[in-house]
């Protein structure tokens, strides 16, 4: 009997129920969101270079990409997104950020709001006329190449890259003999 009565002292307490949403006023609507909440992802269209790393690292297979005419479209289907934050971690340009938006319920999965979409302009291949990569991506690849390459062959590679820059991957292979850019020649240079 005694501990039943002792429990009374726990009954006197302010209710811990929080009102949700805490107000109808939009600014005060969600006052309980902590710092660093992993919510809906946001992709910065300016920073994004279209490397598709977020697609290959996506744990829920939510991020997909497709080539449509002269555009590269990267889409994240938010109903599949698990908010793991792995794409944010892996993105080389820090273009992806998880925001604090957490109310993402939508009625129709075909709606535009169901996707976080990034559209990027593609460059035309000089040889075959196929759209193959973004300008930023080509530039970035070039920069990376210079940073990491063996200094002995640096100049040679830089020259070669300038030659093939405007061709798509298939044409680069086909034209490699004609333009004398086949990578095999670096092998003996490096030793």
């Amino acid at each position, binding site marked *: 009997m005694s501990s*039943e*009565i002792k*429990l*009374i002292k726990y*009954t006197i*307490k*302010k*209710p*811990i*129920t929080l*009102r949700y949403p805490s*107000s*109808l*006023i939009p600014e005060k609507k969600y006052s309980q969101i902590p710092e660093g909440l992993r919510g809906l992802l946001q992709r910065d269209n300016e920073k994004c270079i279209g490397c598709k790393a977020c697609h290959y690292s996506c744990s829920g297979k939510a991020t997909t990409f497709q080539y449509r005419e002269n555009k590269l479209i990267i889409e994240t289907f938010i109903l599949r997104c698990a908010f793991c934050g792995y794409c944010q971690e892996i993105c080389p340009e820090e273009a992806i950020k998880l925001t604090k938006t957490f109310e993402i319920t939508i009625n129709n999965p075909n709606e535009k709001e169901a996707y976080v979409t990034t559209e990027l302009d593609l460059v035309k291949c000089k040889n075959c006329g196929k759209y193959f990569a973004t300008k930023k991506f080509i530039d970035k690849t070039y920069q990376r190449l210079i940073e990491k390459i063996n200094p002995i062959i640096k100049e040679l590679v830089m020259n070669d890259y300038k030659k093939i820059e405007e061709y798509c991957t298939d044409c680069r292979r086909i034209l490699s003999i004609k333009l004398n850019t086949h990578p095999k020649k670096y092998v003996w240079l490096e030793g």
Partner: protein
Amino acid sequence: MIELLLIIFISFFLGLFYSFLIRKFSARLQWRIGPLIFMYKDLRSIMGITRIIQPLYDIIKLFGKRTIIPESSRKRLFIYSPYISLIFAFTSIFFIPFSSIPLLSNIPYSIVIVSYLLIGSLLFMIIGPIASGSPWAFIGVRREAELFLVAEFSFIISLFSMAISKNSLIIWEISTKEFNLINITAGLLMFTSILGKLHIKPFDMSEAEAEIVAGPYTEYSGKLLGIYYLTKIFLIYDFIALFISIFTPINTLPIYLSIPLFLIISIFIIFILSIIHVLNPRYRIKNALIWYIKIISILCLINIIAMVI
């Protein structure tokens, strides 16, 4: 005659208010908010000013739902017993005095009538589910019946010990006689029986949802369940009003004093019931029976001693 019409509304709204209070008290004691007395200001235009009649909203909602009658049930018994139960509970409000207004309680043998009506109401709460044919209902009913027997025992002993010691079978006469020791002992006995009859924890084993789904009311839905809920509203009023009018000297007071006093005492009783409801888990039926037999035998003994004195 006008008070007989008025008491219908008064008892209905008091019953609603009491079941609201049980919900509100137990919510606040459990660190919750519960149904709001004053709605948030910015939501008043949508939700209304108050939620005091939330129990009524629940019943109205049930009336709007489809009623499903199971194939395996005894249909007539299944359908009519909620109504009979409601009629019994409803009729008994006229025979219980309401704060120095005698109503019909000064007719001869009114104590017998009231006890029969209340027993009848609870009995049809048991008979209806039996007719439903659900195994959950059978187990629930079995528990309900066992509890009913022990709770009824203390209920009857308490009522008739009052009748014997006050030398009358009329509720109005019993309630207006002078207050003495027997009022307290018999009142305690009555209180224990109210715990069982209103399914206050630890005695809600017949509705133990974790064990037997909804117990007796498993197969009831829609209107029929609404009728049972309505019956409970009247039953709460019946038991509280009977308790106050018989065991407290309230009916000897003038009406302008007795009505507020009635409200205060009833809210206090509801508060005590809520605290018991909140602090206890549910007993097994076996434990409950043992508890009842233990407590009743002690209280009866004290009661008899008090009667002799």
